Protein backbone atom coordinates (compact mmCIF):
# COMPACT_ATOMS: atom_id res chain seq x y z
CA UNK A 1 0.00 0.00 0.00
CA UNK A 2 1.18 3.54 -0.68
CA UNK A 3 2.38 5.58 2.29
CA UNK A 4 -0.11 8.13 3.63
CA UNK A 5 0.67 11.81 4.15
CA UNK A 6 -0.10 12.55 7.78
CA UNK A 7 -2.55 15.25 8.92
CA UNK A 8 0.27 17.23 10.47
CA UNK A 9 2.13 17.30 7.20
CA UNK A 10 -1.02 18.31 5.42
CA UNK A 11 -1.45 21.26 7.79
CA UNK A 12 1.90 22.60 6.70
CA UNK A 13 0.39 23.13 3.25
CA UNK A 14 -0.81 26.43 4.65
CA UNK A 15 2.75 27.58 4.02
CA UNK A 16 2.33 26.71 0.37
CA UNK A 17 -0.65 28.99 0.22
CA UNK A 18 0.87 31.77 2.29
CA UNK A 19 3.85 32.17 -0.04
CA UNK A 20 1.92 33.19 -3.16
CA UNK A 21 -0.49 35.21 -1.02
CA UNK A 22 2.33 37.26 0.53
CA UNK A 23 3.89 37.71 -2.89
CA UNK A 24 0.58 39.00 -4.09
CA UNK A 25 0.48 41.55 -1.25
CA UNK A 26 4.09 42.54 -1.80
CA UNK A 27 3.55 43.33 -5.44
CA UNK A 28 -0.08 44.35 -4.96
CA UNK A 29 -1.24 41.81 -7.51
CA UNK A 30 -4.66 41.72 -5.90
CA UNK A 31 -4.68 37.94 -6.16
CA UNK A 32 -4.64 37.15 -2.43
CA UNK A 33 -8.32 36.49 -2.17
CA UNK A 34 -8.60 34.34 -5.24
CA UNK A 35 -5.51 32.28 -4.34
CA UNK A 36 -6.90 31.55 -0.90
CA UNK A 37 -10.34 30.86 -2.21
CA UNK A 38 -9.30 28.60 -5.07
CA UNK A 39 -6.91 26.66 -2.83
CA UNK A 40 -9.59 26.14 -0.25
CA UNK A 41 -12.08 25.18 -2.87
CA UNK A 42 -9.65 22.73 -4.45
CA UNK A 43 -8.93 21.10 -1.11
CA UNK A 44 -12.60 20.72 -0.29
CA UNK A 45 -13.40 19.34 -3.76
CA UNK A 46 -10.62 16.78 -3.50
CA UNK A 47 -11.56 15.66 0.00
CA UNK A 48 -15.13 15.32 -1.14
CA UNK A 49 -14.13 13.29 -4.15
CA UNK A 50 -11.94 11.17 -1.88
CA UNK A 51 -14.91 10.28 0.29
CA UNK A 52 -17.22 9.84 -2.69
CA UNK A 53 -14.79 7.50 -4.39
CA UNK A 54 -14.32 5.52 -1.18
CA UNK A 55 -18.07 5.13 -1.05
CA UNK A 56 -18.37 4.25 -4.74
CA UNK A 57 -15.53 1.74 -4.58
CA UNK A 58 -17.44 -0.08 -1.87
CA UNK A 59 -20.48 -0.46 -4.14
CA UNK A 60 -20.77 -3.30 -6.67
CA UNK A 61 -18.63 -2.23 -9.69
CA UNK A 62 -21.51 -1.82 -12.13
CA UNK A 63 -23.40 0.54 -9.80
CA UNK A 64 -20.36 2.55 -8.72
CA UNK A 65 -18.99 2.89 -12.22
CA UNK A 66 -22.34 3.86 -13.74
CA UNK A 67 -22.97 6.57 -11.16
CA UNK A 68 -19.52 8.06 -11.48
CA UNK A 69 -19.40 7.95 -15.28
CA UNK A 70 -22.79 9.63 -15.47
CA UNK A 71 -21.67 12.41 -13.17
CA UNK A 72 -18.38 12.93 -14.97
CA UNK A 73 -19.96 12.95 -18.40
CA UNK A 74 -22.66 15.37 -17.31
CA UNK A 75 -20.17 17.83 -15.90
CA UNK A 76 -17.92 17.48 -18.97
CA UNK A 77 -20.95 18.10 -21.17
CA UNK A 78 -21.84 21.33 -19.44
CA UNK A 79 -18.29 22.50 -19.60
CA UNK A 80 -17.72 21.68 -23.27
CA UNK A 81 -21.07 23.03 -24.43
CA UNK A 82 -20.29 26.51 -23.11
CA UNK A 83 -18.14 26.91 -26.21
CA UNK A 84 -21.06 26.02 -28.43
CA UNK A 85 -23.65 28.43 -27.14
CA UNK A 86 -26.28 29.23 -29.72
CA UNK A 87 -26.08 25.87 -31.44
CA UNK A 88 -29.35 24.04 -30.90
CA UNK A 89 -29.24 20.69 -29.10
CA UNK A 90 -25.55 21.13 -28.46
CA UNK A 91 -25.79 19.68 -24.93
CA UNK A 92 -27.62 16.55 -25.91
CA UNK A 93 -25.25 15.91 -28.80
CA UNK A 94 -22.14 16.38 -26.69
CA UNK A 95 -23.50 14.17 -23.95
CA UNK A 96 -24.20 11.38 -26.41
CA UNK A 97 -20.83 11.75 -28.07
CA UNK A 98 -18.84 11.59 -24.83
CA UNK A 99 -20.96 8.71 -23.61
CA UNK A 100 -20.47 6.83 -26.85
CA UNK A 101 -16.74 7.40 -26.92
CA UNK A 102 -16.39 6.35 -23.28
CA UNK A 103 -18.38 3.16 -23.80
CA UNK A 104 -16.33 2.34 -26.87
CA UNK A 105 -12.99 2.76 -25.16
CA UNK A 106 -14.19 1.00 -22.03
CA UNK A 107 -15.26 -2.07 -23.94
CA UNK A 108 -11.91 -2.11 -25.72
CA UNK A 109 -10.00 -1.89 -22.45
CA UNK A 110 -11.99 -4.74 -21.00
CA UNK A 111 -12.16 -6.74 -24.22
CA UNK A 112 -8.41 -6.61 -24.81
CA UNK A 113 -7.77 -7.47 -21.18
CA UNK A 114 -5.98 -4.20 -20.48
CA UNK A 115 -7.85 -3.47 -17.27
CA UNK A 116 -10.47 -5.26 -15.24
CA UNK A 117 -13.99 -4.04 -14.63
CA UNK A 118 -13.42 -2.67 -11.14
CA UNK A 119 -14.16 0.81 -9.91
CA UNK A 120 -10.52 1.37 -8.96
CA UNK A 121 -9.40 0.87 -12.53
CA UNK A 122 -12.31 2.03 -14.64
CA UNK A 123 -13.11 5.31 -12.89
CA UNK A 124 -9.68 6.98 -12.98
CA UNK A 125 -8.96 5.81 -16.51
CA UNK A 126 -12.36 6.98 -17.72
CA UNK A 127 -11.91 10.31 -16.00
CA UNK A 128 -8.85 10.99 -18.07
CA UNK A 129 -10.52 10.02 -21.32
CA UNK A 130 -13.64 12.05 -20.54
CA UNK A 131 -11.65 15.10 -19.47
CA UNK A 132 -9.57 15.07 -22.61
CA UNK A 133 -12.58 14.53 -24.85
CA UNK A 134 -14.22 17.48 -23.14
CA UNK A 135 -11.29 19.73 -23.99
CA UNK A 136 -11.15 18.44 -27.56
CA UNK A 137 -14.86 19.03 -28.07
CA UNK A 138 -14.54 22.55 -26.71
CA UNK A 139 -11.70 23.23 -29.13
CA UNK A 140 -13.62 21.71 -32.01
CA UNK A 141 -16.68 23.83 -31.26
CA UNK A 142 -14.67 26.99 -31.04
CA UNK A 143 -12.85 26.20 -34.22
CA UNK A 144 -16.09 25.26 -35.92
CA UNK A 145 -17.63 28.65 -35.26
CA UNK A 146 -14.56 30.49 -36.46
CA UNK A 147 -14.19 28.30 -39.55
CA UNK A 148 -17.81 28.88 -40.49
CA UNK A 149 -17.24 32.59 -40.07
CA UNK A 150 -13.88 32.83 -41.81
CA UNK A 151 -14.48 30.08 -44.32
CA UNK A 152 -17.91 31.40 -45.20
CA UNK A 153 -16.86 32.45 -48.70
CA UNK A 154 -15.66 28.95 -49.47
CA UNK A 155 -18.74 27.26 -48.08
CA UNK A 156 -21.07 29.53 -49.98
CA UNK A 157 -19.02 28.92 -53.12
CA UNK A 158 -19.34 25.18 -52.59
CA UNK A 159 -23.11 25.50 -52.17
CA UNK A 160 -23.34 27.58 -55.30
CA UNK A 161 -21.58 24.81 -57.22
CA UNK A 162 -24.28 22.38 -56.15
CA UNK A 163 -22.79 20.94 -52.96
CA UNK A 164 -25.05 19.74 -50.16
CA UNK A 165 -24.32 21.23 -46.74
CA UNK A 166 -22.50 18.07 -45.79
CA UNK A 167 -20.27 18.25 -48.86
CA UNK A 168 -19.70 21.96 -48.40
CA UNK A 169 -18.73 21.46 -44.77
CA UNK A 170 -16.22 18.78 -45.65
CA UNK A 171 -13.77 21.43 -46.74
CA UNK A 172 -13.56 22.75 -43.19
CA UNK A 173 -14.12 19.58 -41.14
CA UNK A 174 -10.53 18.50 -41.79
CA UNK A 175 -9.23 21.69 -40.27
CA UNK A 176 -11.46 21.44 -37.23
CA UNK A 177 -10.51 17.88 -36.39
CA UNK A 178 -6.87 18.71 -36.89
CA UNK A 179 -7.07 21.71 -34.58
CA UNK A 180 -8.64 19.60 -31.87
CA UNK A 181 -6.03 16.87 -32.16
CA UNK A 182 -2.91 19.01 -32.18
CA UNK A 183 -2.51 19.42 -28.40
CA UNK A 184 -2.44 15.64 -28.03
CA UNK A 185 -0.08 15.06 -30.90
CA UNK A 186 2.28 17.62 -29.44
CA UNK A 187 1.82 16.17 -25.97
CA UNK A 188 2.76 12.68 -27.14
CA UNK A 189 5.97 13.95 -28.67
CA UNK A 190 7.45 15.03 -25.34
CA UNK A 191 5.63 12.56 -23.12
CA UNK A 192 7.84 11.47 -20.26
CA UNK A 193 10.71 13.71 -21.31
CA UNK A 194 9.71 16.98 -19.72
CA UNK A 195 7.10 15.98 -17.23
CA UNK A 196 6.10 12.54 -16.10
CA UNK A 197 2.44 12.14 -16.96
CA UNK A 198 0.09 12.41 -14.01
CA UNK A 199 -1.12 8.87 -13.98
CA UNK A 200 2.35 7.37 -14.17
CA UNK A 201 3.52 9.69 -11.41
CA UNK A 202 0.67 8.49 -9.26
CA UNK A 203 1.42 4.85 -9.84
CA UNK A 204 5.10 5.28 -9.06
CA UNK A 205 4.29 7.19 -5.88
CA UNK A 206 1.94 4.38 -5.01
CA UNK A 207 4.82 1.93 -5.17
CA UNK A 208 4.30 0.47 -8.66
CA UNK A 209 7.49 -0.34 -10.57
CA UNK A 210 8.21 2.25 -13.29
CA UNK A 211 8.29 -0.42 -15.97
CA UNK A 212 4.76 -1.45 -15.04
CA UNK A 213 3.59 2.13 -14.59
CA UNK A 214 4.53 3.05 -18.14
CA UNK A 215 2.33 0.26 -19.46
CA UNK A 216 -0.68 1.97 -17.96
CA UNK A 217 0.55 5.28 -19.26
CA UNK A 218 0.91 3.93 -22.78
CA UNK A 219 -2.60 2.52 -22.68
CA UNK A 220 -4.08 5.76 -21.41
CA UNK A 221 -2.10 8.04 -23.74
CA UNK A 222 -3.15 6.13 -26.81
CA UNK A 223 -6.72 5.78 -25.55
CA UNK A 224 -6.90 9.53 -25.10
CA UNK A 225 -5.58 9.98 -28.60
CA UNK A 226 -8.30 7.76 -30.05
CA UNK A 227 -11.07 9.33 -28.02
CA UNK A 228 -10.03 12.88 -28.72
CA UNK A 229 -9.94 12.40 -32.48
CA UNK A 230 -13.25 10.58 -32.54
CA UNK A 231 -14.92 13.17 -30.30
CA UNK A 232 -13.77 16.07 -32.43
CA UNK A 233 -14.85 14.36 -35.63
CA UNK A 234 -18.24 13.34 -34.25
CA UNK A 235 -19.06 16.74 -32.81
CA UNK A 236 -18.34 18.37 -36.14
CA UNK A 237 -20.32 15.81 -38.09
CA UNK A 238 -23.23 16.03 -35.65
CA UNK A 239 -23.44 19.79 -35.55
CA UNK A 240 -22.44 21.20 -38.97
CA UNK A 241 -26.07 20.97 -40.11
CA UNK A 242 -27.18 23.66 -37.67
CA UNK A 243 -25.18 26.21 -39.64
CA UNK A 244 -27.52 25.68 -42.58
CA UNK A 245 -31.26 26.06 -43.03
CA UNK A 246 -33.54 23.61 -44.81
CA UNK A 247 -32.99 25.37 -48.13
CA UNK A 248 -29.28 24.58 -47.94
CA UNK A 249 -28.45 28.20 -47.23
CA UNK A 250 -25.75 29.21 -44.81
CA UNK A 251 -27.65 30.70 -41.89
CA UNK A 252 -25.04 33.35 -41.19
CA UNK A 253 -25.26 34.77 -44.63
CA UNK A 254 -28.22 37.01 -43.83
CA UNK A 255 -27.43 38.10 -40.34
CA UNK A 256 -23.73 38.73 -40.42
CA UNK A 257 -21.55 40.86 -42.64
Amino acid at each position, binding site marked *: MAPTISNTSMLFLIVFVLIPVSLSYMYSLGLGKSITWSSLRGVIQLFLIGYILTYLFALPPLTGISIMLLVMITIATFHASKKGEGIPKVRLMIFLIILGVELMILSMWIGFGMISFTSEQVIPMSGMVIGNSMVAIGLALERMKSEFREGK*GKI*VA*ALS*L*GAKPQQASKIIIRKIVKAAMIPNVDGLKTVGLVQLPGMMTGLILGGVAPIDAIRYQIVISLSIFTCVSISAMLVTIALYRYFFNKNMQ*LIDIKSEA
Partner: protein
Amino acid sequence: MNETNVIKVENVTTDRIFNISFELSLGEITAVIGPSGAGKSSLLTLLNRLTDPQKGDIFYYGKQLTTYPIIDLRRRIGMAFQSSSLFDGTVEDNLKFGPSLVGKWKKANGPLLLEKVQLPKDYLYRDVEHLSGGEQQRVALARTLANDPEIFLLDEVTSALDLQTVETIEKLLVQLAKEENKGIAMVTHNIEQAKRISDKVIFMENGTILEQGKTVDLLGTPQTEQLQKFLKE
Protein backbone atom coordinates in the same frame (compact mmCIF):
# COMPACT_ATOMS: atom_id res chain seq x y z
CA MET B 1 -44.45 35.84 -70.66
CA ASN B 2 -41.81 36.73 -73.21
CA GLU B 3 -40.16 33.39 -74.00
CA THR B 4 -36.60 34.73 -73.85
CA ASN B 5 -36.98 36.18 -70.36
CA VAL B 6 -36.05 33.08 -68.42
CA ILE B 7 -35.74 34.85 -65.09
CA LYS B 8 -38.37 37.23 -63.89
CA VAL B 9 -38.02 39.03 -60.56
CA GLU B 10 -41.17 40.74 -59.28
CA ASN B 11 -41.33 43.18 -56.37
CA VAL B 12 -38.70 41.38 -54.34
CA THR B 13 -37.73 42.66 -50.92
CA THR B 14 -35.14 41.32 -48.45
CA ASP B 15 -33.44 42.95 -45.51
CA ARG B 16 -30.99 44.50 -47.94
CA ILE B 17 -32.94 45.28 -51.09
CA PHE B 18 -36.36 46.78 -51.62
CA ASN B 19 -39.12 46.14 -54.10
CA ILE B 20 -36.98 45.11 -57.01
CA SER B 21 -38.23 43.94 -60.39
CA PHE B 22 -36.25 42.97 -63.47
CA GLU B 23 -35.81 40.23 -66.04
CA LEU B 24 -32.88 38.28 -67.41
CA SER B 25 -32.76 36.70 -70.84
CA LEU B 26 -30.67 34.04 -72.47
CA GLY B 27 -28.20 35.39 -75.02
CA GLU B 28 -27.88 38.70 -73.18
CA ILE B 29 -25.42 40.33 -70.86
CA THR B 30 -26.94 42.48 -68.13
CA ALA B 31 -24.58 44.73 -66.22
CA VAL B 32 -25.46 45.63 -62.63
CA ILE B 33 -23.89 48.90 -61.58
CA GLY B 34 -24.11 51.22 -58.60
CA PRO B 35 -22.14 52.51 -55.64
CA SER B 36 -20.60 50.25 -53.02
CA GLY B 37 -23.20 48.87 -50.66
CA ALA B 38 -26.02 49.39 -53.16
CA GLY B 39 -27.07 45.76 -52.91
CA LYS B 40 -25.62 44.43 -56.16
CA SER B 41 -24.10 41.30 -54.65
CA SER B 42 -27.19 40.72 -52.53
CA LEU B 43 -29.28 40.84 -55.67
CA LEU B 44 -27.26 38.10 -57.35
CA THR B 45 -27.44 35.69 -54.41
CA LEU B 46 -31.24 35.69 -54.71
CA LEU B 47 -31.13 34.17 -58.15
CA ASN B 48 -29.40 30.91 -57.21
CA ARG B 49 -31.12 30.81 -53.85
CA LEU B 50 -28.15 31.42 -51.62
CA THR B 51 -30.71 33.73 -50.03
CA ASP B 52 -34.47 33.96 -50.41
CA PRO B 53 -36.78 36.97 -50.72
CA GLN B 54 -38.89 38.04 -47.77
CA LYS B 55 -41.51 39.34 -50.17
CA GLY B 56 -42.13 39.07 -53.90
CA ASP B 57 -41.61 36.37 -56.49
CA ILE B 58 -38.86 35.06 -58.68
CA PHE B 59 -39.81 32.98 -61.71
CA TYR B 60 -37.58 30.70 -63.75
CA TYR B 61 -39.13 29.54 -67.01
CA GLY B 62 -42.43 30.80 -65.66
CA LYS B 63 -42.34 28.67 -62.52
CA GLN B 64 -41.49 29.84 -59.02
CA LEU B 65 -37.79 29.47 -58.32
CA THR B 66 -38.67 27.59 -55.13
CA THR B 67 -40.31 24.78 -57.08
CA TYR B 68 -36.97 23.64 -58.55
CA PRO B 69 -34.78 21.17 -56.65
CA ILE B 70 -32.23 23.52 -55.15
CA ILE B 71 -29.09 21.60 -56.12
CA ASP B 72 -30.09 21.38 -59.79
CA LEU B 73 -31.01 25.02 -59.72
CA ARG B 74 -27.61 26.07 -58.43
CA ARG B 75 -25.91 24.01 -61.08
CA ARG B 76 -27.98 25.67 -63.81
CA ILE B 77 -27.57 29.16 -62.38
CA GLY B 78 -23.88 29.41 -61.55
CA MET B 79 -22.16 32.13 -59.61
CA ALA B 80 -18.66 33.54 -59.34
CA PHE B 81 -17.87 35.61 -56.30
CA GLN B 82 -16.43 39.00 -55.64
CA SER B 83 -13.88 37.98 -53.03
CA SER B 84 -11.63 34.99 -53.43
CA SER B 85 -13.53 31.90 -52.44
CA LEU B 86 -11.17 29.24 -53.72
CA PHE B 87 -10.88 25.97 -51.84
CA ASP B 88 -7.54 24.94 -50.35
CA GLY B 89 -5.65 22.74 -52.75
CA THR B 90 -4.62 22.87 -56.37
CA VAL B 91 -6.25 24.66 -59.28
CA GLU B 92 -7.49 21.28 -60.51
CA ASP B 93 -9.08 20.51 -57.13
CA ASN B 94 -11.07 23.69 -57.53
CA LEU B 95 -12.09 23.11 -61.12
CA LYS B 96 -13.30 19.58 -60.55
CA PHE B 97 -15.29 20.32 -57.39
CA GLY B 98 -18.62 21.05 -59.09
CA PRO B 99 -18.51 18.40 -61.84
CA SER B 100 -17.26 15.70 -59.41
CA LEU B 101 -20.35 16.14 -57.26
CA VAL B 102 -22.33 14.55 -60.07
CA GLY B 103 -19.56 12.31 -61.40
CA LYS B 104 -19.04 14.40 -64.52
CA TRP B 105 -15.40 15.40 -64.20
CA LYS B 106 -13.03 14.46 -66.99
CA LYS B 107 -9.34 15.03 -66.63
CA ALA B 108 -9.25 16.58 -70.10
CA ASN B 109 -11.60 19.38 -68.99
CA GLY B 110 -8.91 21.02 -66.87
CA PRO B 111 -6.71 22.37 -69.68
CA LEU B 112 -9.75 23.47 -71.68
CA LEU B 113 -11.14 25.48 -68.79
CA LEU B 114 -7.80 27.12 -68.12
CA GLU B 115 -7.46 28.04 -71.76
CA LYS B 116 -10.80 29.85 -71.64
CA VAL B 117 -9.62 32.12 -68.85
CA GLN B 118 -6.17 32.47 -70.39
CA LEU B 119 -4.12 30.57 -67.85
CA PRO B 120 -1.31 28.17 -68.85
CA LYS B 121 -2.08 24.45 -68.61
CA ASP B 122 0.66 23.76 -66.09
CA TYR B 123 -1.27 25.87 -63.58
CA LEU B 124 -3.54 22.89 -63.02
CA TYR B 125 -1.32 21.44 -60.34
CA ARG B 126 -0.37 24.68 -58.65
CA ASP B 127 -1.52 25.43 -55.15
CA VAL B 128 -4.11 28.21 -55.34
CA GLU B 129 -2.49 29.86 -52.35
CA HIS B 130 0.48 30.85 -54.50
CA LEU B 131 -1.52 32.48 -57.30
CA SER B 132 -1.85 36.22 -57.78
CA GLY B 133 -5.17 37.94 -57.12
CA GLY B 134 -5.96 38.12 -60.83
CA GLU B 135 -5.07 34.48 -61.36
CA GLN B 136 -7.27 33.43 -58.46
CA GLN B 137 -10.11 35.43 -59.92
CA ARG B 138 -9.75 33.59 -63.21
CA VAL B 139 -9.60 30.19 -61.52
CA ALA B 140 -12.82 31.10 -59.70
CA LEU B 141 -14.46 31.97 -63.02
CA ALA B 142 -13.19 28.74 -64.59
CA ARG B 143 -14.59 26.81 -61.63
CA THR B 144 -18.02 28.28 -62.35
CA LEU B 145 -17.63 27.50 -66.06
CA ALA B 146 -16.82 23.89 -65.16
CA ASN B 147 -20.43 23.28 -64.17
CA ASP B 148 -21.57 24.57 -67.57
CA PRO B 149 -24.48 26.61 -66.19
CA GLU B 150 -27.13 28.20 -68.35
CA ILE B 151 -27.08 31.47 -66.44
CA PHE B 152 -23.99 33.13 -64.99
CA LEU B 153 -24.08 35.43 -61.99
CA LEU B 154 -20.73 37.18 -62.01
CA ASP B 155 -19.70 39.47 -59.19
CA GLU B 156 -16.87 41.74 -60.30
CA VAL B 157 -14.92 38.95 -61.94
CA THR B 158 -12.48 41.22 -63.75
CA SER B 159 -11.71 43.73 -61.01
CA ALA B 160 -8.18 42.46 -60.34
CA LEU B 161 -7.11 41.90 -63.94
CA ASP B 162 -4.84 43.86 -66.25
CA LEU B 163 -6.33 45.44 -69.37
CA GLN B 164 -5.22 42.73 -71.73
CA THR B 165 -6.70 39.95 -69.57
CA VAL B 166 -9.88 41.93 -69.06
CA GLU B 167 -10.25 41.96 -72.81
CA THR B 168 -9.89 38.18 -73.01
CA ILE B 169 -12.48 37.63 -70.31
CA GLU B 170 -14.85 40.08 -71.95
CA LYS B 171 -14.51 38.18 -75.22
CA LEU B 172 -15.25 34.97 -73.36
CA LEU B 173 -18.39 36.46 -71.84
CA VAL B 174 -19.62 37.80 -75.16
CA GLN B 175 -18.99 34.41 -76.72
CA LEU B 176 -20.90 32.68 -73.93
CA ALA B 177 -23.87 35.00 -74.45
CA LYS B 178 -23.92 35.29 -78.22
CA GLU B 179 -22.65 31.92 -79.39
CA GLU B 180 -23.67 29.60 -76.57
CA ASN B 181 -26.86 31.51 -75.73
CA LYS B 182 -26.11 31.82 -72.02
CA GLY B 183 -27.67 34.48 -69.83
CA ILE B 184 -25.24 36.64 -67.90
CA ALA B 185 -25.79 39.07 -65.04
CA MET B 186 -22.56 40.76 -64.12
CA VAL B 187 -21.81 43.22 -61.38
CA THR B 188 -19.14 45.68 -62.45
CA HIS B 189 -17.62 48.89 -61.21
CA ASN B 190 -16.25 49.52 -64.63
CA ILE B 191 -18.69 51.64 -66.66
CA GLU B 192 -16.61 51.32 -69.80
CA GLN B 193 -16.87 47.57 -69.48
CA ALA B 194 -20.64 47.81 -69.22
CA LYS B 195 -20.65 49.96 -72.37
CA ARG B 196 -18.40 47.53 -74.22
CA ILE B 197 -20.18 44.27 -73.63
CA SER B 198 -23.55 44.61 -71.90
CA ASP B 199 -26.90 44.67 -73.65
CA LYS B 200 -28.81 45.95 -70.65
CA VAL B 201 -27.91 47.82 -67.49
CA ILE B 202 -29.45 47.84 -64.02
CA PHE B 203 -28.48 50.81 -61.86
CA MET B 204 -28.88 50.33 -58.12
CA GLU B 205 -28.55 52.60 -55.14
CA ASN B 206 -29.49 52.06 -51.51
CA GLY B 207 -31.02 48.67 -52.18
CA THR B 208 -33.34 49.77 -54.96
CA ILE B 209 -33.18 49.83 -58.75
CA LEU B 210 -33.30 53.43 -59.87
CA GLU B 211 -32.98 52.82 -63.59
CA GLN B 212 -32.84 49.89 -65.97
CA GLY B 213 -32.89 49.48 -69.71
CA LYS B 214 -30.81 49.11 -72.85
CA THR B 215 -27.17 49.98 -72.27
CA VAL B 216 -27.03 52.61 -75.00
CA ASP B 217 -30.10 54.43 -73.68
CA LEU B 218 -29.29 54.19 -70.03
CA LEU B 219 -25.63 55.15 -70.14
CA GLY B 220 -26.12 57.53 -73.08
CA THR B 221 -28.97 59.53 -71.61
CA PRO B 222 -29.26 58.82 -67.89
CA GLN B 223 -32.61 59.97 -66.50
CA THR B 224 -32.09 60.21 -62.74
CA GLU B 225 -29.86 62.70 -61.04
CA GLN B 226 -28.22 59.83 -59.12
CA LEU B 227 -27.12 57.98 -62.24
CA GLN B 228 -25.88 61.18 -63.87
CA LYS B 229 -23.81 61.81 -60.78
CA PHE B 230 -22.62 58.19 -60.59
CA LEU B 231 -21.46 58.26 -64.22
CA LYS B 232 -19.48 61.44 -63.69
CA GLU B 233 -17.39 59.99 -60.88
